[in-house]
């Protein structure tokens, strides 16, 4: 989403689902995996003003389908074909929201003449490197450096015309031949969802891992952004693209940058290249539009910023975020004379990838010695789990922090590494030949400690402690605090420059006298930022400075703390239930980043004049320009610069995190490395040849294990993995709970009655599922809810597996991820769990 809107987060929030006219649930099983979403969708359904219609698009009929108004099947891995057809339908039938698209997106922008697309390849492809040179994917600029546009949308190189041409190939018949969707159902989906292009209606899209866990995951999301922009559904109540996050604080963990490619606040992590060599080079690199500007130091840079940098957006302030982060981490050791200790930050090798799959590939090669496992379970949840489990044997040491001994903690005990079937591709081990030293640290459960979590809609809420930890288990905060203190002690006295980051790292979180636990509010104070002179909280990121006078651990959390009558307030603790708009914003319940905005890009909820609601949509206005007061105001915190009024050209630029100020239908300049527009490619393992173009696989996806690719002659059945309502993720937090083990006690495979008949498989009996990566056993759930797909003259079967079982807990079963491949999305490296090939037989 970031290439289109500037941020990657869920745009609206859970309660907002009640405000929608149509909900398209695609790549999500909301009723099972985000059950509370159904509360709000049901509310919308019963509300005569909304009469919400629910559409579910999914390879299988789930509990979400059961309560939807319309269910449309679709073969796993064909989302872009499905959505491309929708884009084509919108353009062919002129269903797009014209006023919205013209003003708030880059649809009228002119693209370079060199840009092209042929045979499934965009211009600039280098086959030997499997990469694109995206020099030709940019805008055309006029003599003044302004992007050229054509508001009539007639210019052959404008985004509208290129879009129309690109998706003209996605006609309904071609789409259905690829997706296997029944044509009548597909047409109904198009008709109902595209009706939200009318200005008085909004439609929302809810998605989850069904969309992202593909070799084209990012482009699947990109296709959503195009649909939602054309229909004018972004930044409005009941609209948006709602990425339903799967883990209670995966949003927060991402915000805190527990990812190799970023540092806190979604800033690219520095690399070992010349353009990252010092602070000023780094700032040049991360500030849009700064590349060629004349400055050599922060003083000169500040002067330029004061005058304004064209096409920079809000990220023009990046220098303030970085310097404040360095001040938060290294205190007095970070100052103007030493580049604010920028050199302390690790610089990753720009030529390497450090993402999950790459990490385990490196571990498998013996390149990693020590591993921290913080409440995660890759032996069950990682792709190609046989390989990932084997990789753990090559470690020297592993620290595992969890409530219970998960399959990962106990990876070395798995008796003899038994397999359902002898598979020569899979190595076996015994504990006596595994040299990994394992440290297991028992952690406190969620209500045995305190802290905050950012839910999927970016609302940060506080959790109080309701019970003492079991036995000697400890809060993770205490564990990290202790480790930090001990490492500082071990390095004490060193005068090696490489040890300075540890020695000078600020680490003062002592709790109150007599308390063993660190003081969580001290962490909050640093995280949300403070003025160094007097220690008072920074009230919002506009107050951050790049001169060393402010410290802030994460700029997007600025404003999460404040002083009220001299008392320190951590806003996630707020529990006021006022909702004056009736739109479910609850501005004083917890706190939302950024600066308590509940719906991001909310400038779009009013017409370009900044005041008038969209025709017929008076009650869904979120913010508006108050001419009298000379500022933006409204029910929500405006996602806009407060003082930018009608006299400012940026008044109609609602996407402040994008350099253009507009949302990008066409992702210029390589913000997505596999193309400026989505194109359907088959999954890595696919049973059918490409229809739309000459490429089978996404031409940029990195292939790690070419020898492990299963082909359809041996493995003709499509498989996908997923979760059920009763278990969560790898199951370690649910299979150990008797009440949930009771509801879903065994590993199961779901298959159609047709396939079961063909293979002689009986309901409730064991089945063996085989791939090139391994084999597992599961119990058959033969069901009418799975149906074979008819693709032209071909019939292909699809099965489904729960990936939530393992060899520990009250509910046990084989690990589905022993079958999934080590291949991921070209941009994010998110593994392709959702579409791969297998064969099955009766056990």
């Amino acid at each position, binding site marked *: 989403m970031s290439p289109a809107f500037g941020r990657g987060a869920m745009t609206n929030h859970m309660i907002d689902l009640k405000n929608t006219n149509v909900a398209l649930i695609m790549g999500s099983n909301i009723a099972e995996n985000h059950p509370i979403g159904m509360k709000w969708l049901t509310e919308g359904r019963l509300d005569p003003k909304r009469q919400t219609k629910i559409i579910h698009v999914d390879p299988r009929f789930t509990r979400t389908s059961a309560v939807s108004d319309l269910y449309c099947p679709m073969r796993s891995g064909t989302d872009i074909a499905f959505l491309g057809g929708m884009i084509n339908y919108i353009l062919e039938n002129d269903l797009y929201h014209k006023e919205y698209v013209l003003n708030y997106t880059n649809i009228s922008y002119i693209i370079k003449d060199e840009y092209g697309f042929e045979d499934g390849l965009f211009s600039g492809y280098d086959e030997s490197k499997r990469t694109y040179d995206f020099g030709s994917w940019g805008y055309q600029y006029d003599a003044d450096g302004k992007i050229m546009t054509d508001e009539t949308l007639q210019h052959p190189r404008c985004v509208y015309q290129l879009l129309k041409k690109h998706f003209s190939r996605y006609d309904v018949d071609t789409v259905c031949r690829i997706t296997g969707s029944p044509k009548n159902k597909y047409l109904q989906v198009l008709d109902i969802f595209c009706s939200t292009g009318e200005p008085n209606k909004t439609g929302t899209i809810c998605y989850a891992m069904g969309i992202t866990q593909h070799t084209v995951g990012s482009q699947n999301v990109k296709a959503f952004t195009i649909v939602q922009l054309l229909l004018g559904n972004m930044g409005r109540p009941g609209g948006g693209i709602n990425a339903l996050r799967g883990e209670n*604080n995966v949003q927060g963990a991402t915000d805190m940058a527990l990812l190799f490619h970023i540092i806190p606040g979604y800033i690219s992590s520095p690399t070992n290249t010349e353009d990252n060599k010092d602070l000023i080079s780094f700032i040049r690199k991360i500030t849009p539009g700064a590349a060629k500007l004349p400055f050599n130091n922060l003083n000169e840079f500040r002067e330029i910023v004061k005058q304004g940098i064209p096409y920079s957006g809000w990220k023009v302030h990046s220098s303030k975020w970085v310097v404040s982060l360095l001040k938060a981490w290294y205190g007095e050791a970070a100052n103007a004379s030493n580049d604010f200790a920028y050199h302390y930050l690790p610089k990753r090798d720009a030529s390497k990838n450090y993402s999950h799959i790459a990490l385990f590939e490196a571990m498998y090669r013996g390149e990693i010695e020590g591993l921290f496992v*913080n409440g995660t379970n890759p032996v069950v949840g990682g792709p190609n789990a046989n390989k990932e489990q084997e990789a753990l044997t090559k470690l*020297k040491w592993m620290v595992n922090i969890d409530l219970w001994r998960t399959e990962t903690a106990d990876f070395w005990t798995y008796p003899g590494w038994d397999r359902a079937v002898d598979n020569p591709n899979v190595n076996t081990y015994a504990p006596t030949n595994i040299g990994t030293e394992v440290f297991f640290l028992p952690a406190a459960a*969620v209500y045995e400690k305190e*802290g905050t979590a950012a839910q999927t809609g970016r609302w940060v809420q506080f959790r109080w402690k309701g019970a003492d930890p079991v036995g000697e288990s400890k809060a993770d905060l205490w564990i990290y605090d202790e480790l930090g203190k001990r490492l500082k002690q*071990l390095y004490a006295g060193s005068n090696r420059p490489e040890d300075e980051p540890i020695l000078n790292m600020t680490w003062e979180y002592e709790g109150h006298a007599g308390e063993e636990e660190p003081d969580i509010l001290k962490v909050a104070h640093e995280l949300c930022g403070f003025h160094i002179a007097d220690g008072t909280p920074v009230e919002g990121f506009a107050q951050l400075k790049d001169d060393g006078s402010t410290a802030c651990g994460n700029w997007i959390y600025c404003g999460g703390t404040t002083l009220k009558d001299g008392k320190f307030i951590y806003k996630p603790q707020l529990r006021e239930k006022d909702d004056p708009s009736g739109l479910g914003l609850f501005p004083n319940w917890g706190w939302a980043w950024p600066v308590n905005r509940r719906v991001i890009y909310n400038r779009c909820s009013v017409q370009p004049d900044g005041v008038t609601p969209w025709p017929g949509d008076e009650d869904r206005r979120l913010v508006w320009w108050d001419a009298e007061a000379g500022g933006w105001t409204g029910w929500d915190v405006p996602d806009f610069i407060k003082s930018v009024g009608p006299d400012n050209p940026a008044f109609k630029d609602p996407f402040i995190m994008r350099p253009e100020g507009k949302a990008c239908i066409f992702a210029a300049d390589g913000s997505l490395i596999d193309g400026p527009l989505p194109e359907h490619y088959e999954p890595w393992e696919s049973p059918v040849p490409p229809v739309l173009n000459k490429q089978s696989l996404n031409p940029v996806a990195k292939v790690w294990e070419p020898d492990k690719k299963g082909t359809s002659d041996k493995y003709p059945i499509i498989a996908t993995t997923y979760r059920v309502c009763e278990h969560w993720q790898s199951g370690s937090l649910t299979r150990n709970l008797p009440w949930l083990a009771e509801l879903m006690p065994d590993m199961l495979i779901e298959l159609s009655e047709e396939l079961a008949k063909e293979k002689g498989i009986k309901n409730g009996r064991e089945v063996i599922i085989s791939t090139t990566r391994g084999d597992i056993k599961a119990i058959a759930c033969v069901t009418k809810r799975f149906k074979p797909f008819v693709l032209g003259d071909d019939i292909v079967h699809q099965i489904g597996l729960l990936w939530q079982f393992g060899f520990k807990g009250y509910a046990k079963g084989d690990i589905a991820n022993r079958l999934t491949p080590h291949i991921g999305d070209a941009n994010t490296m998110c593994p392709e769990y959702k579409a791969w090939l297998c064969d099955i037989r009766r056990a």
Partner: protein
Amino acid sequence: MKVTRRQFLKVTGATAASFAVINLGFDTQATAASIKELRIKNVTPVPTVCPYCASGCGLVVYAERQEGKETQLLSVQGDPDNPINEGCACPKGAAMFNLREIYDPHTGEQVINPKREKKPLYRAPYSTKWEEKDWEWMLQTIAERVKETRDNSFIHSENGMIVNRTEKIASIGGSGLDNEECYLLAKLMRSLGVVYLETQARI
């Protein structure tokens, strides 16, 4: 026995809020003496947020917490004050009690979930068993391992540029942690020079 409507249980913690009750419109009157007394009566609920999916539903913990005695849970259920879920909970949220305690299937008695680990555990290389260790030894040994690996693998500079990284230590996970914990983990790992830093967002 005449039972009158109660003035309701107050959510305290750091905030004041009311416990949602249904408006019956009249007094209920118990006719059966066998009806148990409400076991959460006069117990202060402590608000928390569900640790499963990221919807952010609120839950409240009712527990008997006495000085010097192990906490015993009374109930963990949906937080009626939380606007996201208004007291609702799916099966996972409704099962939160089991994260800590369970009812024994043979005796029906309430016990600590036997799957929970109560002590730090250590597995030596090539060993076939876990050994209980104390926290002091564990944390100190881990810190020493980190230092040893870091010092042996550290790349301070490369092509004349300070790069301060180690590629031999990795950290995964964290999406189940609180923000403050994630923040400290990120700060500690980055300061150690760790670049193999990943969370579940990727998978």
